[in-house]
């Protein structure tokens, strides 16, 4: 079975349309997940007992269940209790809720990787906890957080393919549509793989170069 590159080329605009859905969904979800993840992470570390427990339960619940489950709940189950989301927002909300938990852990481990001596030095100058977080800990955290965040971004690009389950026409779904129409199950999927790689490889490369800079 040969790969029909002419078919890929012919269907490229159609596939790229799907890739645009993949990419825009990734970006929207990532922005919300990062903001929410930072807030959840900070609450988990510094929010006290109650907020600490609530955020911990959320983080572990999300990390312990498939992302697909969350997407299905938001798109199919929530409407039963009157919460209707169109496809794109449903997908973005589910993925953001899911990735916020992972990103909260990214922020937590970055903060914990800053040596205690930094906090002690800030305290010894008379800084409050908030001041030491703002001027000493968080600025150092943001550098360390960029490489793992880039990795999460690449992972999210791939996980958006789960939205095929709610019939969103992302890159993977459209490549399957081409397969169904042409009975060629090989070429469209290879085409999709190549387009995914074009999106993920530069990000992973960037992440590696950032890691080197941090060291």
């Amino acid at each position: 079975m040969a790969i029909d590159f002419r078919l890929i080329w012919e269907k490229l605009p159609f596939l790229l349309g799907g890739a645009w859905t993949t990419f825009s969904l990734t970006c929207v979800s990532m922005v919300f997940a990062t903001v929410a993840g930072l807030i959840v992470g900070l609450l988990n570390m510094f929010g006290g007992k109650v907020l600490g427990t609530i955020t911990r339960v959320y983080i572990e619940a999300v990390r312990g269940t498939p992302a697909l489950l969350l997407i299905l709940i938001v798109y199919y189950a929530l409407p039963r209790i009157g919460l209707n989301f169109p496809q794109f927002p449903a997908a973005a909300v589910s993925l953001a809720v899911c990735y916020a938990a992972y990103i909260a852990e990214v922020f937590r481990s970055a903060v914990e990787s800053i040596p205690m001596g930094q906090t002690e030095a800030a305290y010894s100058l008379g800084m409050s906890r908030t001041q030491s977080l703002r001027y000493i800990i968080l600025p150092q955290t943001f550098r360390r957080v960029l490489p793992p965040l880039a990795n999460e971004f690449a992972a999210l690009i791939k996980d958006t393919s789960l939205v095929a389950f709610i019939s969103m026409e992302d890159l993977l779904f459209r490549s399957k549509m081409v397969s169904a129409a042409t009975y060629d199950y090989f070429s469209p999927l290879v085409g999709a793989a190549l387009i995914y790689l074009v999106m993920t490889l530069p990000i992973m490369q960037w992440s590696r170069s950032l890691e080197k800079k941090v060291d």
Partner: protein
Amino acid sequence: MADEELHSMGRILDVVDLHKSFGTLEVIKGVSFGLDHKERLVLMGPSGSGKSTLVRCLNWIEPPTSGRIVFDGREVEPGACDIRKLREDIGMVFQQFNVFPHLTALQNVALGPIVVKKLPRADAEAEAQELLAKVGLAHRADHKPGQMSGGEQQRVAIARALAMHPKLMLFDEPTSSIDVELIHEVLDVMVKLADEGMTMIVVTHEMGFAKEVADRVVFMDQGLIIETGTPAEVFEHPQQERTRNFLSKVHLA
């Protein structure tokens, strides 16, 4: 200056029956001592003797388990006095420098006054530049700690502490993490501070520094003060077996 003369007569610090435990492990088992204005005290003792913990209790970086600390006429305990205000008046220099790696030398020194004392940035940076000159690092103002030697980083840390105009400086093994050939850079700065009349408590094994600078040497072991006296008394005529033992090991090293 008359005011300062008056102060120099008095006590700046009194520590009474201080205890500190980590869980069930008691690290400081009832330590009492006092310190006058402009006095220089050197704390010595084997590792695990509690000398670092003691110094860290004085500015509440390590909250003591029990005991009294009276600093500059204020009873130090949460509630009785603002711990943060206390820390503004007590400078601390750490064994691992703990300079802020994301900031330049100048920013390291200026940050405390800007954030804590709300000093205008320009004023704080002008004074930071003077302090860096004082520790011999005027030419390194725009460098980050990653580009500096241990000796340079520690001098930035000293300038950073001085920027808060502390009434007492605590040095917790300031030269223990520095390459041997660079130790003198840091000690020279500390001697200069002592000459200017800074009140200091220094945890160190640098005998030369202790002999040159210390008014008093305190020897600690197993969470207790074993012996105290002038450098000549403690180094030349140690009264306690444990002090003699320790000194012979330090001399060998």
